[in-house]
């Protein structure tokens, strides 16, 4: 083993494989660039949905909304997860990364894919929204971009598993089970492979359909697409929870209270959460009620049980670790003395709170048959998934960045004062935003809609319950705060990478 390929981290004592570190940095930088693009689109979309501002014209609004979804939910998150997978497999196990050339192919394919997607969307050749429900049709190059991106991500998953196998074979870590974080990421990667196969099953036929080579069944598309669309969010859940454990360990020295319980919970995600994606088609024709209830009622709760386990295990682990530091007086001294000025710690605490209370609870209720009739395609749904994917996943990823910068980029975080405030701006902003969205949605405000005031001059236009407008205003305040929090994150991250003090 050539040791010049490694450096020893002065903080954690882990051996860092330099080619792996380069891959982590490349993917993380791509993620942040895409977050910037998605964030600019987010600002445009939010300011248009605010009736008092109504910034963009209709075509640009729908275009930027499509771009916002793809840049954030697909590109930013999956690039960051690729960085996370390489970190979990290579750095945490002191291992060299398997097949670094294949890993670079992952990066290149994903970059090319995202460029094709962005080009098609921005030139108005893919005004089909994130879901691209047929018969809305985009330029075939758009679907090709999605496929290339997905193939890249699939290669990344195989490199991850290859690295695990290599680490075990070469005995680079003490004999035993993988660390919990690596285990959680392995679960995320398994879900990712299943999800990406759904992606192939839906996007390859769609590409052929867009070329005029085959027909299209709209309902079958919806079923299979959501096998990709919802399951891919479960990759995020497993990756996010791994990040919670990672940051909990680095910030307060947290230990999982029971390895058995935590690992079982991750396995429950792998087994059950992929099945539970039919709540998107509860008010669809074609599928029978028995089928829908089985999928959304029974199977899903086994995955929810897993979240309930983590909901105890992560905060309890943090409490135990802080109590061990001597913060034992009263019930809540540990909470008061927690390292709130550490942006990574405050980010994951807000992320846990947002994902669980705002995202999880609304997800379970909106996914039930009767509630879904009143929630489907309203802004309640948009509020729900902003709670899980933005308030939860994105905020957790932002938090762990404050460790990735010194440990992998080896730069001292520039503007630490701003960094300390950042999770609060973003977290509280999201909290206000999703509250506004979900309550406006409860009054029927639709998602993906340019003009809820005049309906583009439709003769049947009508006025909403005035309370709905109030919640739209609340949404606007929250959205602007969150955009500010996102901007600080990007400034701090880019500033640190370019100008931060180099660490030895």
């Amino acid at each position, binding site marked *: 083993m050539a040791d010049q390929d490694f450096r020893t981290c002065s903080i954690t004592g882990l051996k860092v494989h330099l080619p792996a570190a380069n891959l982590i940095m490349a993917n993380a930088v791509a993620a942040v660039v895409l977050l910037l693009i998605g964030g600019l689109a987010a600002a445009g979309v939010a300011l248009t949905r605010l009736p008092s501002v109504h910034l963009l014209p209709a075509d640009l609004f729908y275009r930027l909304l499509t771009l916002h979804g793809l840049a954030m939910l697909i590109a930013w998150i999956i690039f960051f997860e690729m960085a996370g997978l390489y970190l979990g497999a290579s750095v945490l196990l002191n291992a060299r990364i398997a097949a670094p050339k294949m890993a670079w192919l992952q990066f290149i394919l994903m970059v090319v894919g995202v460029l094709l997607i962005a080009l098609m969307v921005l030139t108005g050749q893919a005004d089909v929204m994130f879901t691209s429900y047929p018969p809305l049709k985009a330029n075939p190059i758009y679907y090709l971009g999605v496929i290339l991106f997905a193939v890249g991500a699939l290669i990344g998953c195989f490199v991850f598993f290859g690295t695990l196998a290599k680490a075990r074979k070469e005995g680079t870590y003490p004999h035993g089970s993988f660390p*919990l974080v690596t285990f959680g990421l392995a679960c995320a990667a398994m879900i990712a492979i299943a999800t990406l196969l759904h992606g192939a099953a839906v996007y390859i036929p769609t590409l052929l359909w867009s070329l005029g080579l085959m027909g299209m069944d709209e309902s079958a598309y919806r079923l299979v697409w959501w096998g990709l669309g919802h399951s891919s969010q479960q990759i995020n859940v497993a990756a996010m929870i791994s990040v919670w454990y990672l940051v909990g360990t680095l910030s307060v020295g947290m230990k999982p209270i029971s390895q058995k319980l935590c690992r079982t919970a991750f396995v429950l995600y792998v087994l059950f959460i992929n099945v539970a994606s039919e709540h998107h088609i509860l008010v669809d024709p074609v599928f029978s009620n028995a089928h829908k209830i089985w999928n959304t009622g029974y199977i899903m*709760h086994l995955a929810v049980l897993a979240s309930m386990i983590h909901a105890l295990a992560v905060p309890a682990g943090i409490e135990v670790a802080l109590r061990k530091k001597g913060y034992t007086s009263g019930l809540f001294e540990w909470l008061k003395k927690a390292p709130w000025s550490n942006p990574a710690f405050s980010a994951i605490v807000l992320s846990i709170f947002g994902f669980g209370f705002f995202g999880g609870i609304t997800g379970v209720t909106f996914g039930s048959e009767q509630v879904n009739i009143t929630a489907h395609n309203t802004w309640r749904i948009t509020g729900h998934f902003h709670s899980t994917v933005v308030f939860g996943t994105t905020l957790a990823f932002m938090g762990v960045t404050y460790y990735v910068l010194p440990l992998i980029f080896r730069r001292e975080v520039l503007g630490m004062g701003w960094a300390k405030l950042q999770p609060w701006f973003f977290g509280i902003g999201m909290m206000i935003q999703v509250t506004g969205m979900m309550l406006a949605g409860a009054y029927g405000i639709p998602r993906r809609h340019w003009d809820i005031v005049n309906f583009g001059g439709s003769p049947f236009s009508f006025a909403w319950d005035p309370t709905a407008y109030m919640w739209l205003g609340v949404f606007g305040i929250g959205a602007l705060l969150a955009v500010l929090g996102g901007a600080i994150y990007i400034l701090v991250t880019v500033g640190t990478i370019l100008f931060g003090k180099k660490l030895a």
Partner: protein
Amino acid sequence: MSISVPEKVWWKPIDKEEKIWLAIALIWMVISFVWMPIYHYIGKQNPSSESYKAPREQFEQLVNGFIQKYQVKDANGTPVAMNDIPVVHPPAGGDAYLVGAGWKWKPVLELEKGKTYRIHLSSFDFQHGLSIYPLNINYMAIPGQDYVITVTPTTSGEFPILCNEFCGIGHHTMVGKLIVK
């Protein structure tokens, strides 16, 4: 530590606190997954699961025949329309058709309070989201599918219907009307 290898044997009995939490979570999950099918039988508002394949040409004939037969006529016998969309009074207790096409919901249905109707929902172009305000009831209209929704209106008035599934650049102009007398 979550980032280092655990001790050799980590499959150990869990503590009492965790058992209590697990039991609470399990009971909660059991209740919520039993409740959903139970409510399907005792509740009065379920998503419909009756649907048929409806090729566009055949379905369009049905819809046109329906509109011709039941379009409301004024005192002079002239067919009534609102904003060029025919107003149709289907037979109480019978079939009615509602279709999304060209960023319009057609026709304007005039229903009678307390009577039960089978509304056939479909689309002639893109996927549309039927959303009836202020009840906030939402169903998908999918091209090629006839989605049968059995309804009994309980409140009279005029109810706007909007589209809440993106269906192209005119999506936001797609507002229709449902009248209950």
